[in-house]
């Protein structure tokens, strides 16, 4: 029995370090290769020793697919390819390929230069790793090898995020990565066609949430920022360099322009400039509005937003600062946060999801006193606001995608176990498909029944067509032929042709059967009675009475004989070829019931 096996190495009932192994029809594919934000020891990378204890990973994996450039989806890639060792192809979209190395480099700098970690991947490794990448276009079908093919679909979420369909023969798996079903200020909504995969692996970050109108949220966000700034407070918005940051920038930029505000907006330097460059470049991946207006003005050329310098943080007066990283776990955003946390006029707006263990998560859950490195305690007096700008699909969006793709079964990853449980019930209830939610290291085995394509010879088909009516979708039809299996392809041909091809002579196969009838009359009369009886029942068939006393129904021969020992019994000899098996056995059973009492 063929099967699909799925093992999450990360992101199983968890958010962070997405890494899912899929075996489909003998092909092994790794989906995403991320790191975990909450850990700084071995746990931050997936456990690649699960794949093989010894030897190169290349021998065990056919390809690696990266859905988008967030570090929890690609952070472990250089470690995996250069330090553990993998030389096979890595697939990602063009924007991801462009932006991924920037983020990896940034991450490496923080880990090595700031935290002083040893045994970390180097810049060269990142470059080498990126050389193995094969970029794909949206909706382009890429042949990884003769059998395995992959195809990318638009996923929203961040620039270049894609969902991937992995297909071998008629079996297929769709992996969504992170996606967004509601469009935002700069990206469109995820879309997939009705590809009916065997398995849909979907993220479930917001498994229990149904969000309200996006516009409401935008308005609230702008109002909060505006109020704080008018009060003279400073606003800190921790973001990841790419993605949400650009959306919020566009939002604030247009708002500033409309309201004619003069308060400075800063964006932490370095990454941003490069990132915005790519946003300008990959304009086709953005939403309808930006695509249509970029001729007049590229929305990513900001007028009001300037680059941030470390010294600006101490400037008096109101300001708005976007700083990385988004979960306040390290870097510039944490530094600024420390400086501003003491003043209740200030505000920090967390625009996205925070992983457990990060400062962001702590302050959002209401913790007011934070223990920082070096045992100092930081008291948080500033206002803490959460605005869900995270571009993940909410429960309704997930259901919508499942509805669109019509999978045979669903597998949930990238979410919290408790919430997954709830969504799982919902999906099973609504779509009546199996739903799985494996933990890390747990394997899900999915039996499949792949359909095997076979050919039919034209002659045979035409003969069938000539015989009967047109095929009807609702009714199965019986067709006689010979199945030839040769070089792993299947052909249905007529038996004569099969004989010819194989060089065999035809054998006649006849079944004969005796039916005893209690009848005192003469043989001819019996035959006559049999004839009239059959004639009255089998109206569709050609029933004949031959001069020699035998009866034929189509090609079936019936002869009546009187055995010498018992004159009261007549023996009916029924003989048919195996092609007429159906009719033959029907006739026998009919005759066994006896003839109707003739009016004598």
């Amino acid at each position, binding site marked *: 029995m063929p099967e699909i096996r799925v093992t999450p190495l990360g992101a199983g009932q968890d958010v962070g370090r997405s890494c899912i192994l899929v075996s489909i029809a003998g092909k092994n594919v790794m989906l995403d290769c991320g790191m975990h934000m909450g850990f700084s020891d071995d746990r931050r990378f997936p456990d690649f020793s699960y794949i093989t204890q010894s030897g190169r990973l290349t021998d065990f994996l056919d390809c690696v697919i990266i859905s988008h450039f967030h570090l929890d989806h690609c952070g472990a890639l250089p470690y995996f390819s250069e330090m553990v060792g993998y030389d096979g192809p890595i697939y990602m979209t063009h924007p991801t390929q462009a932006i991924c190395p920037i983020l990896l480099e940034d991450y490496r700098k923080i880990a090595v230069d700031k935290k002083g970690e040893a045994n970390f991947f180097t810049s060269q490794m990142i470059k080498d790793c990126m050389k193995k990448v094969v970029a794909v276009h949206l909706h382009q079908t890429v042949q990884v090898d003769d059998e395995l093919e992959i195809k990318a679909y638009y996923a929203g979420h961040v620039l270049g995020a894609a969902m991937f369909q992995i297909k071998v023969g008629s079996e297929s798996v769709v992996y969504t990565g992170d996606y967004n079903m509601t469009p935002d200020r700069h990206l469109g909504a995820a879309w997939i066609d009705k590809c009916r995969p065997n398995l849909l692996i979907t993220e479930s970050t917001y498994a229990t*949430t149904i969000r309200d*109108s996006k516009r409401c949220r935008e308005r609230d966000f702008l109002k909060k920022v505006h109020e704080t700034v008018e009060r003279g407070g400073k606003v800190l918005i921790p973001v990841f360099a790419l993605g949400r940051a650009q959306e919020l920038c566009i939002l604030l930029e247009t708002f500033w322009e409309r309201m004619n505000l003069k308060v400075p907006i800063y964006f932490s330097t370095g990454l941003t400039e490069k990132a915005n460059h790519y946003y300008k470049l990959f304009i086709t991946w953005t939403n309808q509005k930006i695509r249509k207006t970029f001729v007049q003005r590229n929305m990513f050329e900001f007028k009001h937003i300037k680059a941030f310098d470390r010294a600006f943080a101490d400037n008096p007066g109101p300001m708005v600062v976007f700083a990385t990283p988004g979960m306040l776990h390290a870097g510039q955003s944490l530094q600024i946060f420390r400086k501003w946390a003491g003043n209740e006029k200030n505000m920090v707006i967390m625009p996205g999801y925070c992983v457990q263990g990060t400062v962001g998560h702590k302050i959002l859950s209401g913790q007011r006193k934070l223990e920082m490195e070096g045992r100092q305690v930081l008291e948080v007096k500033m206002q803490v606001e959460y605005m869900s700008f995270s571009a993940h699909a909410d429960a309704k969006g997930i259901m919508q995608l499942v509805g669109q793709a019509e999978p045979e079964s669903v597998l949930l990853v990238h979410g919290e176990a408790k919430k997954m449980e709830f969504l799982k019930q919902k999906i099973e209830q609504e779509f009546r498909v199996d739903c799985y939610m494996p933990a890390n290291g747990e394997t899900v085995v999915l039996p499949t029944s792949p359909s095997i394509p076979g050919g039919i010879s034209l002659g045979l088909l035409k003969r069938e067509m000539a015989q009967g009516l047109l095929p009807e979708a609702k009714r199965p039809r019986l067709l006689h032929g010979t199945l030839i299996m040769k070089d792993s392809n299947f052909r249905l041909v007529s038996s004569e042709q099969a004989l010819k091809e194989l060089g065999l002579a035809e054998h006649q196969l006849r079944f004969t059967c005796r039916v005893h009838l209690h009848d005192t009359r003469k043989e001819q009369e019996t035959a006559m009675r049999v004839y009239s009886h059959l004639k009255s029942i089998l109206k569709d068939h050609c029933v004949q009475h031959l001069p020699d006393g035998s009866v034929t129904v189509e090609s079936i021969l019936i002869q009546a004989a009187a055995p010498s020992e018992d004159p009261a019994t007549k023996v009916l000899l029924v003989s048919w070829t195996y092609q007429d098996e159906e009719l033959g056995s029907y006739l026998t059973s009919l005759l066994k019931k006896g003839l109707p009492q003739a009016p004598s």
Partner: protein
Amino acid sequence: MAAHLKKRVYEEFSKVVQQPQEEIATKKLRLTKPSKSAALHIDLCKATSPADALQYLLQFARKPVEAESVEGVVRILLEHYYKENDPSVRLKIASLLGLLSKTAGFSPDCIMDDAINILQNEKSHQVLAQLLDTLLAIGTKLPENQAVQMRLVDVACKHLTDTSHGVRNKCLQLLGNLGSLEKSVTKDAEGLAARDVQKIIGDYFSDQDPRVRTAAIKAMLQLHERGLKLHQTIYNQACKLLSDDYEQVRSAAVQLIWVVSQLYPESIVPIPSSNEEIRLVDDAFGKICHMVSDGSWVVRVQAAKLLRKRTAHERAKELYSSGEFSSGRKWGDDAPKEEVDTGAVNLIESGACGAFVHGLEDEMYEVRIAAVEALCMLAQSSPSFAEKCLDFLVDMFNDEIEEVRLQSIHTMRKISNNITLREDQLDTVLAVLEDSSRDIREALHELLCCTNVSTKEGIHLALVELLKNLAKYPTDRDSIWKCLKFLGSRHPTLVLPLVPELLSTHPFFDTAEPDMDDPAYIAVLVLIFNAAKTCPTMPALFSDHTFRHYAYLRDSLSHLVPALRLPGRKLVSSAVSPNITPQEDPSQQFLQQSLERVYSLQHLDPQGAQELLEFTIRDLQRLGELQSELAGVADFSAAYLRCQLLLIKALQEKLWNVAAPLYLRQSDLASAAAKQIMEETYKMEFMYSGVENKQVVIIHHMRLQAKALQLIVTARTTRGVDPLFGMCEKFLQEVDFFQRCFIADLPHMQDSFVDKLLDLMPRLMTSKPAEVVKILQTMLRQSTFLHLPLPEQIHKASATIIEPAGESDNPLRFTSGLVVALDVDATLEHVQDPQSTVKVQVLYPDGQAQMIHPKPADFRNPGPGRHRLITQVYLSHTAWTEPCQVEVRLLLAYNSNARIPKFSWIEGGEVSPQVETSIEGTIPFSKPVKVYIMPKPARR
């Protein structure tokens, strides 16, 4: 006449007209046209290859065929069809047959047998499909003939099993268009046993080809449109199609579901996976809501549009109270109660809003617009829903696409009677005033005109924001004043407590008198004065200069400042203009009487007739000025009478009594009159909206008379006969054309010029020009004056250029040779189809004129019959030494062809014979505005 023009089928076909020399020899006028069918026959016989034949057919298709010769042509085509082996030629012939059978005045039942016959022997699928199309054309031409319809339906059913999707498509189309409405047709159709068309079409809902499935649904919708009641069983079939793989199928299925739900709203359908039942209309609504989140935006737009079309009134309420439809509600019911750490669990209170939230947040603005429209329609029918959806609508004001913003502002305006804005909503609305788009701002002003505000702070806020807007965009002045006028008159009690603050009066001190010319101050005064109209206590709060300013504004901006009842100020309270109270009946009567008087014209002597006409014209003009609602009728009638007057005058000329050669000089008046009549008739035909066919006939008739006049004058004043030939021929052609176009109206024109003319037509055709002129002259004198029936609604098109105002003394300077953009802003009233007719003309001092066609997008349609043109005109000229004025005016372009009923089947816009007589021209319809410009020589 008709006999003269009739073409004989196998006539000789060389073009006589092309050999004028011969004609001169015979000195006869003949109108001859080659026989269509004969030419075609010869062409087709000449064709050596299929490609050749195809070329001939294509050429042939470019020219129209008259109804009388259709049958002959069809025979030829059919004959050729049987011989032809090439499918592409057969295809073309089949399509020609279809086109021909659409010819007006041709009954296609005679070719039906042949068409069905060739259908049976045809092998090519494409040709088959085309033939079925032809049959469809034939069938639709004969809607009464039951037997034909039955037969065609039968043919369609036979070919439904064809393997080509194109053929099946056409069959379904045929069934949809012709399938019998009643099952029990008369007995004579017994042989073709009445079929259940719905069942047959329904079977193809599950066809393997999506195109056929779509065609089946469309055929079903077609049946519905033709009045056949669809079975309820179709609902379930259609529901299955909602999950089809192909978007066009889903899109059509949504429509079908909507249709069925309107037919059987009260039937009960079970909810799958539970034992509850709901009404079908609710179920369908839920399904359509669900489709708003479909994967394809085509379907989403369709679904959102259908949400709007829901006519069932009370259902709107259930939209938000019962949550059956969108899965959003189901979620809300059993979502875990655990508080997710983020606190973001924010369930939408109402399920249906779920569908709208989806629609409003959709990626494609087409869907968003459809959703806003849907919201608008539902809100209009249900005030409580309007209140609910307000928040969503206000949110849409911040959409990223201007069109959507505009649409939502308009929507808001439409429902604003039902709602009162909260302060925070008003805040959001007002924030949009700073939008840089003029359309948005003006739409918003209009919205504020009819908005209800709940608090005095709200009014204050609105005023402050509007003044800010005024400071930022001074061009919005008029629109803002108008907006404040309504705001004030709507909320007098809210304005009252604000008055001291707004006028900055002080209880003890006199404050400085504000500047009377400051637009912002005027804006405040407009608000206050309009509020004071219904609030008698308010004037007590005014200071002295306020009263003075009132008097000034009442005079200068009387449309914005109402008459106030001010104590002790006679000057103001008496200023009620007489034309405000319309007395409709007497003036209407007056109009009727004066017109009736005119129709006794015939019995008067020429002198008396002239005087009567002059008086009446004067009366009408005055009436038009006094009564704006009758202005259209009065002007229209006056124009017609003026034509008649001119005609009479021209015929009174002495020139007719004297020998021709002597009157070269004096003929000026007559020919000028002819010219002027022509101009007037064009104005009458094209400058008025609401002119009907019966008026057009009269107008054309008048024009014909003018042309006759012209001909006579020319004949009198020119020597030699040669140029007259052409003119005569042309005139006769025009008479012929007139007859063809208005054949239905001819009986009403007893004793008129054209009536007499047509009687003598055979004679005219064979006469020499001199004779023709003579006849025309007598007829023109004898003909009676035709009564002009007045149309129900008639309005004269007019235009006012608001900008440029033409007041500026500062010339617009630019470098010669380069261009300068001039903003033009104009309002157009009662102009039909302004996009194609309104032009801007620029006249330079040197007489050079330039015509500019504004872009279609420059026209806005703020209300019925009103249009607004906001465009930029580019000026350029070589250098001048002094600044000088150029004139800008608006023109109305016309094409005399536009109103003529078109002969059918002209393929691909090739010139039709009428175009020869068509005249294109322009009528100025706005006052010219002078713009001071100064092209300077370029500096080196």
